[in-house]
């Protein structure tokens, strides 16, 4: 059975089963998305956006849609993944919402946080207006696939001038039950004028299953609003992960994105934002740490549509073993987007001889009064600092570990949520020094 036939069969099955629930417009959207996916097929390396990443391993595995099943996981099982237990959290196990493990009571009454399933029941028109409005699937096969198969997810609506003080934690736990499964989580965040929220989306694994997570997030940052989105991809080494974050920003709006990726055999993370209003600010940072035969691909796209917006990007990768890292960062400046200030930096550190990296920082500029730069470096640890540390009595091994950590720390320092920054600093420090950070 061809990959497409596999998904066609499953699509037919879900359409007649649980997928028929929800408002009447939903099956039509799913059908359009599926038709588009079927027409596009999985991308090949002949597609410029996928030039360095072959998704053949995903295409040739016949991932199945999971049937709803009760989970055996308890609060104790997921406790290690709670970065801060005081945060409001929604926990999903293998894509299925687990109310027993979640805790998000006590949010301001005006702020809407619910599962997608609930929002479809309670405010179908509102969901219809936003779902799929940003994450276009005309040219994006994985987004089309997600839209066709989407079952559940999270919907967040922060009304005008409302600020959510503590981060909202969306925890996706994948366990052994997900062996051979495709999970298509969805996130929709709408931050109205002058509101603010921080969302931490985390993908972790208990046990080691071979599965596909194909996530899509849509984030609307209205005039003067501030949204921070942290994505932590820490799945097992047999996992496949494809994720797209698509944001749109209004006037004076700020969107801060951080992607941390250390899991999955093959991962692809797309972070896209469009600066539609003047004076907007976008900050896209990321860190990936890979080893063995892992493949991690990040693609960022910042579209400066309006005047006087600033974008800042810092992506770093640390590669060991025979791993393969890809970074493709595009900055587009529309003819109307005068006074654009764009800066992009991409650095890769190769720890082993077999590791390889492909990077493609792109600028497409159609306005003249702009300041845009990008820089990319690839290399191993610098000999001079290593020598300096060794001359102060630090062993070669420790010196290497410290400098590797320091390389990562530059980008971790940009995390504005203290507990999260500490959590990741500890994890990265332990990874390279094999000791705990005090």
């Amino acid at each position, binding site marked *: 059975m061809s990959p497409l036939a596999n998904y066609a069969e499953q699509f037919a099955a879900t359409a007649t089963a649980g997928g028929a629930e929800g408002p009447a417009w939903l099956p039509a959207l799913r059908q359009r998305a599926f038709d588009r996916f079927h027409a596009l097929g999985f991308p090949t390396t002949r597609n*410029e956006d996928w030039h*360095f990443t072959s998704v053949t391993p995903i295409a040739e595995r016949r991932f199945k849609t999971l049937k709803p099943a009760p989970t055996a996981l308890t609060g104790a099982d997921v406790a290690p993944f709670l970065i801060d237990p005081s945060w409001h959290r929604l926990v999903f196990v293998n894509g299925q919402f687990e109310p027993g493990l979640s805790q998000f009571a006590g949010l301001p009454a005006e702020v809407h946080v619910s599962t997608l399933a609930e929002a479809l029941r309670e405010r179908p028109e509102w969901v219809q207006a936003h779902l799929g409005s940003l994450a276009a699937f005309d040219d994006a096969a994985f987004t089309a696939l997600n839209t066709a198969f989407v079952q559940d997810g999270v919907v967040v609506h922060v009304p005008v001038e409302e600020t959510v003080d503590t981060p909202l934690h969306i925890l996706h736990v994948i366990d052994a039950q997900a062996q051979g499964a495709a999970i298509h989580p969805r996130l929709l965040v709408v931050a109205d004028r002058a509101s603010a929220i921080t969302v931490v989306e985390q993908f972790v694994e208990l046990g080691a299953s071979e599965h596909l997570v194909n996530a899509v997030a849509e984030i609307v940052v209205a005039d003067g609003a501030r949204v921070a989105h942290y994505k932590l991809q820490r799945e097992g080494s047999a996992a496949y992960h494809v994720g797209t974050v698509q944001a749109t920003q209004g006037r004076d709006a700020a969107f801060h994105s951080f992607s941390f990726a250390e899991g999955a055999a093959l991962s692809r993370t797309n972070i896209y934002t469009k600066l539609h209003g003047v004076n907007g600010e976008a900050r896209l940072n990321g860190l990936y740490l890979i080893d063995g035969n892992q493949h991690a691909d990040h693609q960022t796209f910042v579209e400066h549509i309006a005047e006087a917006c600033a974008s800042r990007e810092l992506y770093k990768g640390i590669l060991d073993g025979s791993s393969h890292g890809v970074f493709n960062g595009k900055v587009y400046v529309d*003819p109307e987007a*005068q006074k654009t200030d764009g800066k992009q930096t991409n650095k*890769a550190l*190769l*720890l*082993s*001889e*077999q*590791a*390889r*990296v*492909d*990077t*493609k*920082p*792109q*600028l*497409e*500029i*159609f*306005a*003249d*009064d*702009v*300041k*845009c*730069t*990008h*820089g*990319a*470096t*690839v*290399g*191993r640890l610098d000999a001079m600092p290593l020598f300096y540390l060794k001359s102060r009595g630090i062993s070669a091994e420790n010196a290497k570990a410290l400098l590797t950590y320091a390389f990562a720390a530059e980008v971790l320092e940009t995390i504005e949520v203290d507990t999260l920054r500490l959590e990741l600093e500890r994890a990265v420090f332990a990874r390279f020094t094999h000791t705990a950070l005090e």
Partner: protein
Amino acid sequence: MSASIESLVNKEYAYGFVTDIESDTIPPGLSEATIRLISAKKEEPEWLLDWRLKAFRRWQTMTEPRWPNVTYDPIDYQAHTYYSAPKSVKPLQSLDEVDPELLKTYEKLGISLTEQKRLSGVAVDAIFDSVSVGTTMKSELAKAGVIFCSFGEAVREHPELVQKYLGSVVPYSDNFFAALNSAVFSDGSFVYVPKGVTCPLDLSTYFRINAANTGQFERTLIVADEGASVSYLEGCTAPKRDEHQLHAAVVEIVALDRATVKYSTVQNWYAGDSEGKGGIYNFVTKRGKALTGAKISWTQVETGSAITWKYPSVILQGDDSVGEFYSVAVVNGAQQADTGTKMIHIGRNTRSTIISKGISAGRGQNSYRGQVKVLPKAAGARNYTQCDSMLIGNRCGAHTFPYIEVANNSATLEHEASTSKIGEDQIFYCKARGLNAEHAISLIVAGFCKEVFKELPMEFALEAQQLLGISLEGSVG
């Protein structure tokens, strides 16, 4: 931006005249018969005809590349003429036999072959439409053992060298336009510098398209034997015509162990009018192969052509080999350029430097596209890339598409790119010091391009600077 820049006069393309000269032109169209005809006219040996036919058959199976960031109407390959030669061309004994009309043309272009011979110490091979019309300073070169002649002559006089190196860097199957060139190339220049010889003169080729609806497909082959060194300059112009003309050249450079080749281009093909009517499609494949300790350096100033599509590249095959690319590309009016380089690091401790300066004005679109590839065995490879863009006006575009592919962790790569504008404040500053707007712009642009111009031989550097001034005149600020 404003009136001060806007008010600059729009200078006409100075080289747009047509020379009225009788030509031996074959009918338009492309088939095996065309290739046999070209080959027969050039009295070529059997092996070369076979090579051309192989290339043609391969070309027929290929499709035109669509990935460059340029747009143009489909090219009708059957409407072009693939061979046009000034009629009076016979095997020439000396320059005195060259048609005086032709010599006048070159004089208008500022290259007087006869003067050149005496004064400048630069040996010139001039290519008019499809054939080489005269090579100067031959005897001086011969004393050093340097072979510098037209491609046709090289095929007759030095077939073993041509056969050995032709297609060794750019195989006929390389890409669509290289295959087309391999099938129909008419003439070009051939250089061979023997072992240990430093070429006593700078070598130079001047290309001129004159006939209408004619494509120019020249082929240049430069071989620098072990320890040899040569500097080669190339310049190009064409008359103003309303139709687009195709220029699909191939340049191959072979730098054997410890050889040094420096290749400089000032490209000023007719760019078409401001609406994009007419102009040359400049689709060129240029590549060098550097063996152990060898160095290949490309310097280009691209101001002409309706569309430029070229990536002078270096295959750093030998250990310790060096590749350099210095480029200034200017687009104005409706010009489009997609240009850059490829540095393929194969040998150990190979080094490459890329400095690219793009200037966009009018409605021009300028793209830098470059690849730096470090293969697993290229331990200690080093690359530094800097590509800067300057925009003049808000209807133009500047784009950067670098591909950095590293498969060896001892390699060190740095890539920097920036885009900025030529500012009213900079111009104001210059004006406050007594310069007029025109001088101010040319000063600012010259400063922006300084790193590249300093790589050019002196007389070329001056020409390039003037050319840049002319290209940018009338650009809407």
